[in-house]
């Protein structure tokens, strides 16, 4: 009964209600846009790191994290295969890798380098290495030739068709040595990587390091990234913990995340301010509304309506207004956010060039996680709630006598 009253009251004064609703709408819209932008950059960076570096989940030898050496490589045996098969419904694909230090030598030069043994097929599912090929051909899965990063090729003064010697320490102290022909050159964005990386096919690298069936890391990519922790713990449960460890990207990127958290905290503050501003705006509107209806309220009360009932009605009115505003705000922002999600704002000028140099796309990304919308809605609702308390107080304090104009 009261609800109907409240609802009708709203539409009695259409303009006023609309104005208030639009105030809330605007607030929600702004908050969502802001949050979306913040998260967009955050998500993109994580995405990059995951794609190019850590993957979502990694299976490693239990000692590898502390001491990343070839001796601490994991054995990719039937048990692991069985484990992966068991959870195949949740795993999108996996990427095996073996990485280690080696000396690269030409006739005239010797240089420390980093060998990455990859399976080109699986690796391509993870990132766009194939697109970075600038000369020659890409590795095949059983290739005996190698690919060099452009920086290293330049330093050694070699190119496609040349051969270089690779020398290093293999598994359990054996000597790793081989002469390899360069099949292709890959352009890597980050200078440290470009000056030192060599790509080999997985079998060739395993042979080189005398590490048959061994990997330094096995990246597992879940079908739904949201289920990462769940999948990781399931894998952990099925694995021999004496030999293996299962790590998630959060563990592997701890430091980066810590920094981002701090960054996020900064923007939280920013948003807090936005909310305060919005709250005040909302408050002002409600206040005006109250003042305007003082006579009406005074009349109702003197006619016998209980104050508590009036208060309830008024409260519900403000809830309705807020809800309408929130829903409208969300509905307005969804298409806009989605648009920018698929078409992020391109940056230009020097800024864009710099970003591109580091391998990132020069855009201002937006996030479209549903949680985003829900979170904002909730906050604004709470705000509206708090602001809505004021009219209640007012109703109880109303002095009927003074109100007559």
């Amino acid at each position, binding site marked *: 009964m009261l609800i109907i009253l409240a609802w009708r009251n709203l539409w009695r004064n259409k*303009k*006023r209600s609309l*104005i*208030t609703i*639009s*105030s809330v709408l*605007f*607030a929600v819209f*702004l908050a969502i846009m*802001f949050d979306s932008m913040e998260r967009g950059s955050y998500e993109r960076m994580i995405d990059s790191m995951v794609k190019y570096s850590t993957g979502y989940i990694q299976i490693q030898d239990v000692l590898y994290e502390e001491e990343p050496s070839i001796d601490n490589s994991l054995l990719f045996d039937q048990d692991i295969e069985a484990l992966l098969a068991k959870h195949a419904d949740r795993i999108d694909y996996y990427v095996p890798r073996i990485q280690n230090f080696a000396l690269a030598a030409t006739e005239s030069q010797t240089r420390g380098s980093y060998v990455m043994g990859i399976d080109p097929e699986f690796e391509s599912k993870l990132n766009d290495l194939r697109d970075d090929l600038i000369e020659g051909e890409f590795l095949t899965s059983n290739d005996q030739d190698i690919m060099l990063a452009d920086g290293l090729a*330049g*330093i050694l003064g070699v190119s496609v068709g040349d051969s270089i010697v690779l020398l290093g320490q293999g598994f359990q102290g054996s000597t790793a040595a081989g002469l390899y022909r360069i099949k292709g050159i890959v352009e890597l964005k980050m200078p440290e990587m470009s000056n030192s990386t060599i790509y080999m096919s997985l079998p060739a690298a395993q042979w080189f390091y005398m590490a048959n069936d061994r990997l330094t890391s096995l990246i597992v990519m879940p079908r739904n990234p949201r289920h990462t922790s769940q999948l990781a713990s399931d894998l952990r449960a099925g694995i021999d913990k004496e030999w293996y460890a299962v790590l998630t990207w959060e563990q592997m990127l701890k*430091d980066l995340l*810590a*920094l981002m*958290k*701090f960054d996020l*905290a*900064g923007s939280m*503050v*920013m948003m807090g*301010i*936005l909310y*305060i*501003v*919005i709250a*005040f*705006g*909302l*408050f*002002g*509107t409600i*206040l*005006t*509304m109250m*003042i*305007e209806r003082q006579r009406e309220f005074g009349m109702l009360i003197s006619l016998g309506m209980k104050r508590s009932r009036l208060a309830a009605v008024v409260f519900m009115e403000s809830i309705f207004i807020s809800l309408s505003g929130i829903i409208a705000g969300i509905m307005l922002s969804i298409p806009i956010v989605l648009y920018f999600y698929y078409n992020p704002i391109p940056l230009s000028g*020097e*800024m864009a*060039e*710099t*970003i591109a*140099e*580091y391998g990132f796309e020069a855009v201002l990304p937006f996030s479209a996680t549903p949680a985003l919308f829900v979170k904002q809605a909730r906050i604004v609702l709470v705000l509206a709630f708090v602001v809505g308390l004021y009219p209640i107080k007012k109703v109880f304090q109303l002095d009927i006598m003074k109100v007559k104009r």
Partner: protein
Amino acid sequence: MKTLLKISWRNIWRNPKRSLVMIFAIIIGLWAGIFVSSLMFGLLQARFETSIEQQFSHIQIHHPEFIKDRQLKYGIAQWESLSRELASDPMVKAFSGRTMANGMLATATLTRGVNIIGVDPESEALTIRLDGNIIEGTYFEEGGRNPILVGRALAEKTKLQERSRLVLTFQNLDGELISASFRVAGIFQTANNMLDEMNVYVLQSDLNGYVGQEMVINEIALLANDTDRLNEIRDTYLASYPGLTIRTWAELSPELSYIQELGQTMLLVILIIILFALAFGLVNTMLMSVYERIPELGMLMAVGMNRRRIFGMIMFETAFLTFLGAFGGMILGVISNMITGRTGLDLAVVGGESLKDFGYPTIVYPNLGPEFYIMLTGLVIIMVFITAIFPAVKALRLKPAEAVRKE
């Protein structure tokens, strides 16, 4: 005109509560916006200054090959003449030549790769203030054989302390391996933990003694007196020494300039958003106020007040409210900046420790460049104008006859 102003002014105070709420909202919003922007700006500036001060300086000079492959042999052959020129150049505030070798640092427990930087203590102190960053021990002040300065991050990992003994191994100009023992004279800490782990400082004379016959200088860093003329300075020297690579900090660290630009853009965006939100609230309130007074306005119009005057009255009301709020907000902002700007805020308290890893100092001095205040004022004025228009226009469109009868 004057009466109009007076009437508008009085109108505002007819409903003190509402007006105050509005003004208050603007004050708070603006002040908070200024504060946060200043914080961010201060952070940006701090990062910038620290990077310049402790790492890049304004301009660096190298042998072109040294940039790709940091080997001792790629020295600046023209060091003598160049240093004389730099010393007598009024645009150059300070400069320092460094000998740089890659090597290994060994203690009883660990061996690590390091950048060995041989410096002349005096000129280095003027250029990157290494002496100010010493947290333990001294800055090459004591006598003693082969003193070395190590960064705190490195000292922690290798358990080094003042007076610890360590062995540096590196290649001399002939490609031979040299090992020599050094004693830790001091431990330094800059804002950049990553660099602190990699760089160790020794006396240039000591290093060159091991390295070969003559003195090799691989890097020259300089500070200029006027930061706006860096390109000019660079070009001047490039003309005289075309074989060398001379770069300004912007070229040395594109990411630094990127962050600067990005930061400033973001600040502006934030301020705009906040102002926008405020404006909206203001428009709403004013609209309400107009509606509330429809009968009254109608009366005024019927009685003969011309529309233009009404328009003006509403405009002024809005303007007053906004200006009061904006003024208050800005004053608060300036005051809070003055206070925090002097003492600084320590961000480590709110979890900013990890900032050090990425080159940010943890103590920040909020401030806002003067351009921002000007821009802000401009924005506020625009905002006032825009917000005032709507309600005023609304008032204009009223039909007196209807209005008077409106409830």
